[in-house]
């Protein structure tokens, strides 16, 4: 069945995104990796939508919502990165260590 390839693609892209989030130092690149994860989810949803032949195209509508919410998240994320860059002259995640156990 053709669906398998799409699911594997989605899972691979998702794993790549998780790796990026965990390994990247720069906050902007972390943000990019999260976008990659959301793209993987969208691939999954659209592929499944074609597969289950949903009457109301639920998967595609869900994907639209995810795209819109992702844009809002990017807006918030850029604002945060900008603020931190202004204050610290660096957008590296691992330099933020004021709050510790």
């Amino acid at each position, binding site marked *: 069945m053709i669906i398998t390839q799409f699911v594997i693609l989605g899972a691979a892209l998702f794993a790549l995104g998780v790796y990026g989030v965990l390994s990247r130092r720069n906050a902007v690149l972390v943000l990019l990796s999260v976008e990659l994860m959301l793209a993987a989810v969208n691939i999954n949803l659209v592929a499944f939508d074609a597969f289950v032949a949903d009457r109301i195209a639920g998967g595609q*509508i869900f994907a*639209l919502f995810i*795209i*819109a919410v*992702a*844009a*809002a998240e*990017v*807006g918030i994320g*850029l*604002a945060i990165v*900008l603020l931190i860059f*202004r204050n610290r002259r660096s957008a590296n995640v691992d330099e933020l260590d004021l709050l510790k156990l």
Partner: protein
Amino acid sequence: MTLADYLPIALMFVLGVGFASVAMYFSWRIAPKKPTPEKLAPYECGIVPLQEPAQRFPVKFYMVAMLFVIFDVEIIFLFAWAVRFDQFGWAGIAAVGIFVALLIETLVYVWKRGALDWNVARRARYRRVVAPERVQEEAA
């Protein structure tokens, strides 16, 4: 499936943690330690940079980028309506009208706040009029 069925997962977890810690322990024990400044420096190709790279983009680009991303993508909801607009009738048009009106209210807000102003000096003047306390805050 009960908790007992999770045993393989737990075993897998223990094995994973165990393997990683054993490997790390032995590499720490066995490896010779003769640090020199060169060895302690983070590895990077090429010449060590002597100064910070060139100045980055001014803030106003980010501001426009953020607003663009949001306003651009919100239009996506019109697609869902557009493919079946003939079946939704006037109720659909009303709903889309409300949606666009909300976007316009946001745009007016952003405009009033001076975020669209390319000219930074003009933006500052706007703020002195619209929100005097903010100018003081930024000066502080």
